[in-house]
């Protein structure tokens, strides 16, 4: 007996993304905040409709993935399509200047204030 979903899910994912398994850009981070610019409309792919409905308020990529129960990389492909079509905008996290550099002290101060107020 095989695990439920084990055999059908690759096909499903393949269909969702129109056959692609990689986003053509690495523009989306796990915590890029996505905002809808359009309402979901009939005739759109159901995943696109779900994303547009969810992102009326800013929503992180990882929350979209959890909500849609799709792997993060698949969601990034869907989002690239929506972004290219102008249906969503993205608020990207500020990248650190280099991979091993440290965050801005001003940002850290804000984080400390926020945490202490919890």
């Amino acid at each position, binding site marked *: 007996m095989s695990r439920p979903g084990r055999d059908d899910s690759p*096909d499903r994912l393949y269909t969702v993304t129109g056959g692609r398994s990689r986003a053509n850009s690495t523009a989306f981070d796990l915590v890029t905040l996505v905002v809808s610019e359009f309402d979901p409309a009939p005739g759109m792919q159901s995943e696109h409709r779900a994303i547009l409905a969810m992102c009326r308020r*800013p929503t992180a990529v990882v929350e979209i993935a959890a909500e849609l129960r799709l792997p993060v990389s698949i969601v990034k492909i869907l989002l690239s399509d929506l972004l290219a079509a102008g249906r969503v905008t993205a608020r990207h996290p500020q990248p650190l200047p280099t*991979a091993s550099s440290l965050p801005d002290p001003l940002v850290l101060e804000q984080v400390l204030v926020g945490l202490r107020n919890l």
Partner: protein
Amino acid sequence: MDSAISDSAADRTPLLSTTTSALKIVVVGGFGVGKTTMVRSVSEIRPLNTEETMTQAGQDVDDNSAVRSKTATTVAFDFGRISLNAETVLYLFGAPGQERFWFLWDRLFAGTLGAVVLVDIRRLADSWYAIDRLEQHGTPFIVARNDFGGPKHSLDQIRDALDLAPQVPLIECDVRERESSKHVLITLVQYLYTLSTGDAQRP
């Protein structure tokens, strides 16, 4: 709109519409060490779970033959969030420390502020690998010993066993308690602050 979307949307707590920036902190630890408990105790949402897949050797796959051959590795992780103010939200990720996960570290956690290594004194060896990899990635981290009762060891003994550099903060916690989890996060961010203002040597 179909009802499935509306139903799931009803369970969600959306971010404020003024939120413009998001930050990440990763909690790393072995199975059962309390990562999800820690995320739950401070998160404003019920922890969610998602997954990422990686194809073997990370090569580009443009045809469906590779998708069908099931060479993909899937890693699952939990997360929660804390809205720090009207503009900024902090995402907390619980990541298993096991080896295969590190292949995805850069893709998932590039740009993370820092990491908390959560350790269980009964299974200290579980965290050796995570500590090595964080050092290698140059990701600043602190170590927090989650209290499961059991034998008492001094923090010095734990520091020795983990071969931790003297400047890396090592604290005790009980992640079931919100205040304790908060304290762990504050300790990490204070440490990052010290590092970023140059008051201490980088590990």
